């Protein structure tokens, strides 16, 4: 019941913001891991050129739901997704959709920095190469430089592009992964707890980066840190035990939550 109100609220708020189009629209999404019902009836609309945060206690399904948006759950044999997720009004679980093409449009940054054990240059250039985004070497160089600049990493690595990406510090590695994700020019960027393995300074850099990316992308970030959600996002969704409990403007969620579970979580009584 609460969830229905949440959705209705959400529709109300979007109507107040006419310049923000809906990029991702999920309806009645169910995810099963074998017999476990991990995500129950999630309805959510994610806006373009905005940061949406998913918060909630561990095991609440926020990462699982995030991985539905670029069909990374396909790689888990026992996972099963039902319901409908529309990106630009196309059902991404349609039979005709190729998940490989989808993932070029929906980039992802993972919890643990996972650069390829290759050079910094090759890490960023890999996506554009396999998608044929660069006609020649100099175009590829441009894409690599642009992506690294946007990931605020260029100045630190421009002299050592041929060194292995795994040799960078944790924060640099994560920004490298972000550069790698944006190099393929996705329209949506999914971030699964991108700062959980980073120290406060690196976290700050990544958050700054997320705020900048907002101008071009629809960013969805899963985070354990409520402060982080508060700092970077415009909309926040609170997940609990596989349900989307509440979804609203970040300010509303943190200042004036409608559901008592949200309030308990925000104030630190559960979670």
């Amino acid at each position, binding site marked *: 019941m609460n969830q229905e109100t949440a959705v209705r609220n959400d529709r109300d708020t979007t109507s107040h913001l006419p310049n923000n189009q809906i990029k991702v629209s999920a309806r009645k999404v169910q995810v099963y891991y074998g017999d476990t019902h991990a995500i129950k009836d999630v309805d959510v609309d994610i806006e373009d050129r905005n940061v949406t945060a998913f918060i909630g206690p561990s095991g609440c399904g926020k990462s699982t739901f995030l991985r539905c948006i670029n069909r990374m759950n396909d790689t888990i044999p026992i996972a099963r997704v039902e319901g409908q997720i529309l990106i630009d009004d196309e059902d991404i679980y349609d039979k005709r959709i190729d998940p490989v093409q989808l*993932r070029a449009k929906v980039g992802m940054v993972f919890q643990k920095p*996972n650069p*390829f*054990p290759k050079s910094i240059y090759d890490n960023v250039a*890999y996506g554009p190469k396999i998608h044929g985004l660069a006609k020649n070497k100099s175009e590829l160089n441009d894409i690599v430089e642009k992506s690294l600049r946007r990931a605020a990493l260029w100045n630190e690595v421009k002299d050592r592009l041929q060194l292995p990406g795994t040799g960078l510090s944790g924060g640099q590695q994560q920004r490298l992964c972000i550069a*790698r994700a944006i190099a*393929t020019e996705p329209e949506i960027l999914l971030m699964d707890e991108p700062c959980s393995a980073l120290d406060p300074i690196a976290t700050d850099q990544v958050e700054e980066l997320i705020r900048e990316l907002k101008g071009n992308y629809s960013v969805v970030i899963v985070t354990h840190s409520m402060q982080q959600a508060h700092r970077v996002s415009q909309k926040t969704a609170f997940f609990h035990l596989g349900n989307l409990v509440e979804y609203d403007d970040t300010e509303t969620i943190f200042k004036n939550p409608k559901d008592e579970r949200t309030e308990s979580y925000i104030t630190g009584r559960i979670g």
Partner: protein
Amino acid sequence: MTDAPATIADASASRSKGSLLEKDARTKKRNAAETRFKAYGIIAIGIGLAFLAALVFSIVRNGVPAFTQTYVTVPITLEAETLDPEGNRDPADISGVMTFAYSPLIQQGLQSALEEADVETDMSASDLTKMLSSSAENTVRQRVVSNPDLIGETEEFRLLASSRVDGYLKGRVERADLERDRNLDAAHLDIVDQLQEAGVVSRTFNMDFILGTDASDNRPEQAGIGASMLGSFFMMLVVLALALPIGVAASIYLEEFAPKNKFTDLIEVNISNLAAVPSIVFGILGLAAFIQFAGLPQSAPLVGGLVLTLMTLPTIIISTRASLKSVPPSIRDAALGVGASPMQAVFHHVLPLAAPGILTGTIIGLAQALGETAPLLLIGMVGFIASNYPEGVASGFLDPNSAMPAQIYEWAKRADPAFYERAWGGIIILLVFLLSMNLLAIILRRRFERRW
């Protein structure tokens, strides 16, 4: 209220552990158990090392003599009237002269060698030639046939000594052993002693053992392992060319793409089972499938290679899957996350990281196949068959040949103790190959292993 301090004091008294300088009974017992366990471990390792040392010692002691060989240097006058009765130096006529015509020449040569060395004996000339290998006539003849200009000259020939003489110089044959010997007796050995002082009989490094071909039962001094080494080489080519691609492709499919269901579970269980199947079973399978059913030539390295491929595949598949499994899933996620197809993720990222493990597994599998004997017995790669070098590559794959371990087995079962010495020598060569392959595996692993 009043007794509260007392309770606290009691509690702290019972909590006191006593002095740390003294070990309590429990600690002593635990330490003793630990010392005992360490001792057991050291004893176990010691026993293992002792066995290894005994093995290495006996192999070296028995095998090293095979690498030297006794030769007799004989000046032989190649009489024209015997070897070229027509006198026209026609190669066809010269090769028409059979080996028995050379016997008297060799006898004369040996006698003149004895005279030169001031050795006096009343032994007959034919009796004396028993000191030489029965291959002597053939050796001389081959040289004459290939170079007819030698006819009429007196040439020095280094001829193989008989296996008894060779054994005597190596300390394997004693005078007492010759009492029951039909070929040689103690008098021969006295002559050998004198000839050795004169430098006519000498023992040198035996390249023919490493590069030569097998010889018949009564000429152990002529036998070499070279031809069967080539047999092993061609078999390994077949194994590498088949087992590596098939094994790696099967592993990649099973590990990265196959759905997890009862059928793939069954395949998995069976691969593990195949790895434990005795190799002789693969031998009889090869005999039935490749020779009797498919009609491939018997004793051919091609068939041996096919059988060993079957035997090596489970090893390669298991080690390849293990190294694919050890690539962190985050690398796959990263590749799929930027929109790589599953195949691109595997070939661009997973496979390069797994390559050192795959290579190591393959080399270990090859080494295992190289040392395998039992299946070769069943497909006929054993016996006196490695007596000729293969002529070219096709012949290398298709003509009957033996392999190193089968050749060793063949020598070990022959009666003459001189063959026994060859078997040990062959084991040294085989071990050198195996150890260098394992070393290569270690080097590759060290060199290419990447950390992430």
